[in-house]
Structure formats: C-alpha cells, structure tokens
C-alpha cells in the first residue's frame, strides 16, 4: 500500500493533481486506487488537499494518517502539518512557495515548482511539476503513464505545457537523487 | 317564433340567485319549493320573454341552467 497526499491552499490545483495521479495509477498502471479530496466550503481559502491511496488489491483504507509521499505547495499548509510532515518518507515541496522546512525523518526534495512552471508558461502548472517530481522519487509512479493521463485530461492547448511541467519536475528531483 | 326552453337542474342549484339577478328580461324567479339541499332554485316565469342572451348559463356557478332555442 502506498499513500500520497497533495496539499496546498485552495485554488492551487491539489485536487486536480490528485485526480491525474489517481487516474494514471488506476487506469494506466492497473492499481486499485481511492482518491479523496478535502476542502472547505470557500473556493479560494483554507487548506485543500487530495489523498491518493494505492494498493494491489481492493481497498478499504480510505484515510491517510501519515502519507508515504507528501507533496506541499504552500508554506502555511506545511506549517499546519508539521507533525505529520516529520514522519513521512518523502517530502516534496514547491520551494518557490515553501521556504522553511522543519525537521523530518524522511527525505526532502525542494523543487521550485512555481518558478519552473512559470518559466514554461504559468505558475498554475506547479501542481503538475510536483507530480513529475513524485514520479522521479517513487518507484511505483510511472512518468510515461502520467504523461498519457495528462494528455487525456487537459484540453489540447494545455497539453504541451503540462507534459513539459511533468518532465521538468521529474528532472528536477533526478538531479537531487 | 323559436321555441325557447330554459332547463333548470334543480339539484345542481345552490340558490345563489345570480341567474335571476343577471337575467335582463326577468325570465327567472326564485322558487317557493326547496331542492334536496334546501335551496330555492330558479323557476321560469315566462320563457317567451327570453332573448337568448345566455347570461344565466354563463354566470351560473353550478352549471345548473341550459337555454335552448
């Protein structure tokens, strides 16, 4: 079983990223996947996150207490998850927005996802940059499958941007590995 | 002269008197008898006075009057 949480501020595309990841793992890689989202009633405020639980067989564990991989796009979000973050295996942060990382037992990957995405086209693609980074970090998450999913998920004019975002994110962690 | 028949279904009548009031030629009068709901239904006083305006048909709330002619 593998547990991934993608968190940030509402509006940063954490749910979208979780959906892409879940779809890729379920439909392209054949895993059993449950993806859930948590958000408040407000559209553009508060913590929003997406949980993806992955296994080889039918899944009844829907809740992530402590993820194996934690992807964070916002400083306040990480601050609120300090205790959880200290226990994760891999912590991948968008270092263009998350400057301060407290101690964690796991490995920390600082990926300037916002800046990378902005250099491609728009900082909005930072969520996809982090997905690419996750593919670089996790042996189970396949980059090619993510690419296939991104191609299906986005309208045509955004496909190239997001494919590049994926790849740049992937390369960013390879350098650090 | 056409024959004018004013049919009154006394058991549909609730005795409101609107037909009598709205007849421009005073063709109708209230009955002395009561129908089965204790209402004074209209009776035809003089059918030949009727000018076939059919206001009684139109204004009767209970579909109790039919004018032929």
């Amino acid at each position, binding site marked *: 079983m593998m547990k991934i949480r993608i968190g940030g501020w509402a509006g940063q595309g954490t749910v979208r990223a*979780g*959906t892409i990841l*879940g*779809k890729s793992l*379920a*439909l392209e890689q054949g895993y*059993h*996947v*449950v*993806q*859930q*989202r*948590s*958000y*408040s*009633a407000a559209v553009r405020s508060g913590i929003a996150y997406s949980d993806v639980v992955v296994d080889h067989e039918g*899944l*009844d*564990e*829907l*809740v992530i*207490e402590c993820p194996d991989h934690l992807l964070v796009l916002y400083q306040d979000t990480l601050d609120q998850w300090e205790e959880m973050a200290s226990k994760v295996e891999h912590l991948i942060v968008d270092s263009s927005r998350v400057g301060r990382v407290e101690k964690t037992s796991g490995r920390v990957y600082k990926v300037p996802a916002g800046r990378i995405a902005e250099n491609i086209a728009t900082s909005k693609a930072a969520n996809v940059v982090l997905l690419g980074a996750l593919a670089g970090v996790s042996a189970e998450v396949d980059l090619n499958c993510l690419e296939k999913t991104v191609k299906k998920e986005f309208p045509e004019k955004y496909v190239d941007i997001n494919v590049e975002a994926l790849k740049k994110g992937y390369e960013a962690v390879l350098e650090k590995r | 002269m056409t024959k004018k028949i004013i049919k009154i279904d006394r058991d549909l009548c609730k005795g409101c008197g609107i037909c009598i009031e709205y007849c421009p030629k005073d063709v109708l009068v209230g009955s002395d008898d009561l129908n089965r709901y204790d209402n004074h239904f209209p009776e035809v006083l003089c059918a030949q006075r009727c000018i076939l305006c059919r206001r009684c048909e139109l204004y009767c709330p209970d579909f109790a009057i039919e004018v032929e002619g």
Partner: protein
Amino acid sequence: MMDAGEYFLEGNIACAEAAMKAGCLFYAGYPITPASEVMNHLSKELPKVGGRFVQMEDEIASIASVIGSSWTGLKSMTATSGPGFSLMQENLGYAVMTETPCVVVNVQRAGPSTGQATKPGTGDVMQARFGSQGDYEIIALSPNSVQEMFDLTVRSFALSERYRVPVILLADAGVGHMRERVKIPEEVEIVDRKKPSSGEKEFFDTSEEDHVPPMPNFGEGHELLVTGSTHLGDGSRDTASFSAQDRLVRRLVAKIEDNKRDIEDWEERDADAELVVVSYGSMSRPARGAVKKAREKGHDVGFFRPKTMWPSPEERLKEIGEGSKVLLAELSLRGYRMEVERCVDDLYVYDRLNSLPTVDEVYEKILEVLR
C-alpha cells in the same frame, strides 16, 4: 454519456452517468454541496441524449417538477444534500401517495442544519424513512463505493419503476466525492413502469399480488385524477371515509413490505462470528478493512452491510443479533442506531463525526469490544 469501459470517476459523476444509462430523461435540481456534481455533469450531458435538464429555484420546486415530469412518462431524478432533502420531504410524501416513480439522490453531509457542507455524515437515515408526514414505507439504498454509486443508481430507477415509488439513493459525501475505478457495462437492468391495457380505469388500486397498479401518462386521454389527498382506485378524492384511507394506506405500505424479499440486499461475511461489525456507506469501507485485519489476526469477527437501508433487513439483523455481539460503525450519532438497537441485544457503537476513521481506528474498537 460515457461508453462502456473502465473509468476513474468521482462517485457523483458515476451516479449521473448511471442515471443516463438507466434511461433518465429528466433532471431538475438546485446547487448544494456535496451533491452538485451530479447536476453539473447532467446539465452538460443529459441534453446530448435527448434529456431535459432544468435548474429550479429551490429543492421544493426541483422534486415537484420531477414528479410532474414522471407523469408524462419520463424517468426523472433530482439530487441534493441535507438541507435540500429536508425541503423535499413534503413532496416526497406526495410521490409516495400518488405512486410516482422517481429517484432522489441524497449525498449526505454533516448536519444538523448547515453543519459542515463538505464533510460526510449519515445523520439522515431516519429522515429518509420518516421525514414526510403520515404512515408510509420507502426504499433507500446505500452505496459504499464509486462502483456502487453507479450500480445502485441503476437499481434505484429499476425499483422505482417496478413499484411505482420514489426511491432514495442515500449516499454520503464520502462516496460522492471519492474517486475510484468504475466499470460501466454495455447493458444495465432497465425496468419500465406497468402501463394500463386499453379500457382500464383503475390507476390507484389493484388486486394484483405486487400491489402495483398500472400507470398511464398525461396526454393519453384518461382524464386522470392525480391527488395527494386520500383517493379511490379511479383517483377521485375521498377525504373522509374510513375505507378509502384504510385501503389506500395499507396498500402503499404493503407495496414495500410484501415485496421486501425482492428489494432487500446486503453484503455479509462470517455473520455468525462472535462479533459482527454492522456498517454502511463510506464508513463501511474502513469497517470492512478492520474486520479483515481482525480475522487475519485470528479474531472471530464478521461483517454485515445493508445496501438497502429501507426497508431495513431487520430479520437478518435479528438473526445476527441472536448469536453475536454487534458493533455498529457509523458516521453519525443517531443515523441507523435506533433501527439496529431494535434488532440486537448486545450492541456496541463506534460513532464518528466529520470524517472517516482509519482501518486501525476501527480495529482498535473491535479489540476493545472483544476484550
């Protein structure tokens, strides 16, 4: 409408797709978290299959127009959540009384009142059964996965058409907002309401064993009398006589009660164990996981999950309660509890608000009960 195949979908989207697959041609609704996705999706897709979509001014109007539509012969649906479900109660009773097939989806959220709109809860279980005034029985189905959001939506339409009743799909935000792999089959079970044969005039009474009279459409020349007041077999109102009230209401109740065997459905595993965990909806997922873990660790624990909340599988619950301790795990304090209490002597409860537990949290409770 999606082709047959495998998809990774949100529960609410699976529900919307299932409705179209089941032949739904009319949707009326009003926005509410966490059910809006059903409506959002159908607003886009339903017209493409010839269906009519309309967003109404509130939930009362939504269910009213759904009932109106059903009388023209269309399979019709609305979806809502707690506050909207409360507003629908009067017309839900109207649908029961007039024997109007329709599907009402309630993606339950944490209440009471506005509560927490995005958080799951199952506090509407009793409301689904008793929320409208007077004596009646109703069918309410409880999905626990995205696949079941699809399958039980299809079944809701089938049951509502078969028995001429409103059917409630009693989901919760957990399954409504969850994404999972779902298989959309080529064919689904489609049931069409019983139509009258020519010359037939009794559309509100029957001596048939299933208690279901035939249902004509508006515009077919039957000069129909459809009323929520007590009525005779031809639909004419009878607001006073003993016999009219007695005959009608007893038949409406019998329609569910006597067809229970066909309607009832549940999932069970080792339901003769020392302890049986009873759970439903999204909560039944970690509960089932915990039972599995307990068995792997050598504990004698079973699992029972009603898929039909109403009519409640009370006989089976009573059988289980006779031989086993029961642990009810639910996402509310008062959801299904009174119904289980009624059937089971040795009852323990794991109740929870706002969010699902982990498998381990339920497992700990199982161990506590076993000790």
